[in-house]
């Protein structure tokens, strides 16, 4: 289990660092926009309190009767420190999750040789998990209309999987035919198209949403580049026995 243990060590350190930095970036760049959007949301929702998405019933997470209402019966962190603490926790935990994926997949391809190669791997992660799904499903603010959650999650996961497979075919195989197939696999989910809401009408101002899309994309870029660079820098310490073949990538 040495390899598994080494992957977990590298991923834990890289994920912790990138998650902490991401939390700080979000606190300045994205969370204020989310809070601002929630003021429009609660203004538009009237007496229903904190109601997300279109007011119509059926838009609910767990099949509960009425629409999707936060802060009703289910627990939610209190605004302020508690809410920020859970955001930080989510950043760190998923940072480690993304790092596990990144390190495991890069080890299958021979391993990341150094921090500069790590940047390329990080950029691949950014393209896979932020750019590609964001084309069809741009980052949303609370109170914006959206299609059925399950359908969007399916499209999101399928797009991420297709983009990862396509990039692997392009970058890790030295074959023109496989590269063409890789491009086709990356493009395919966008031809199918992401699930869209019936109407895009929202009380959230377009400028606010635009700022949010830019903020989400750039913070994610920094997160992924840092994750890849740290993983690449740490690899030599933990995988001394299994040197990366130099020049396999980048």
């Amino acid at each position, binding site marked *: 289990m040495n390899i598994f243990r080494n992957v977990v060590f590298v991923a834990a350190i890289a994920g912790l660092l990138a998650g902490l930095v991401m939390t700080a970036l979000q606190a300045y760049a994205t969370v204020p926009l989310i809070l601002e959007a929630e003021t429009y949301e609660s203004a538009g929702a009237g007496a229903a309190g904190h109601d997300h998405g279109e007011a119509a019933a059926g838009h609910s997470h767990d099949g509960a009767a009425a629409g999707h209402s936060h802060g009703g019966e289910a*627990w939610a962190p209190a605004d302020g420190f508690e809410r920020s603490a859970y955001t930080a926790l989510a950043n760190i935990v998923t940072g480690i999750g993304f790092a596990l994926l990144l390190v495991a997949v890069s080890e299958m391809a021979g391993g990341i040789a150094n921090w500069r190669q790590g940047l390329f791997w990080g950029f691949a992660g950014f393209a896979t998990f932020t750019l590609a799904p964001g084309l069809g499903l741009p980052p949303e603010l609370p109170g914006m209309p959206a299609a059925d959650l399950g359908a969007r*999650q399916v499209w999101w996961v399928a797009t991420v999987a297709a983009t990862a497979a396509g990039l692997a075919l392009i970058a890790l195989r030295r074959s023109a035919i496989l590269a063409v197939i890789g491009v086709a696999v990356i493009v395919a989910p966008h031809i199918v198209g992401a699930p869209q809401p019936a109407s895009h009408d929202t009380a959230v101002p377009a400028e606010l949403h635009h700022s949010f899309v830019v903020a989400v994309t750039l913070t994610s870029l920094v997160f992924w580049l840092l994750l890849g660079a740290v993983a690449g820098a740490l690899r030599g310490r933990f995988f001394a026995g299994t040197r990366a073949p130099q020049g396999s990538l980048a």
Partner: protein
Amino acid sequence: MNTASAAFDAQTSSQSRFMQLAMAALLGIFVIGFVGFSHMEVVHNAGHDYRHSMAFPCH
């Protein structure tokens, strides 16, 4: 997946190596899926700002 010591590290069979890497990748997918995609109301509320900030499909 034997309990090989560090001395055997370099000789770990490629199949065992692949299995360990696959397990690590699956663990990562499970963690991301739980935090980012759970339909449980409590998990959703706790990770609300995170989900929006990472552009996960949220509500």
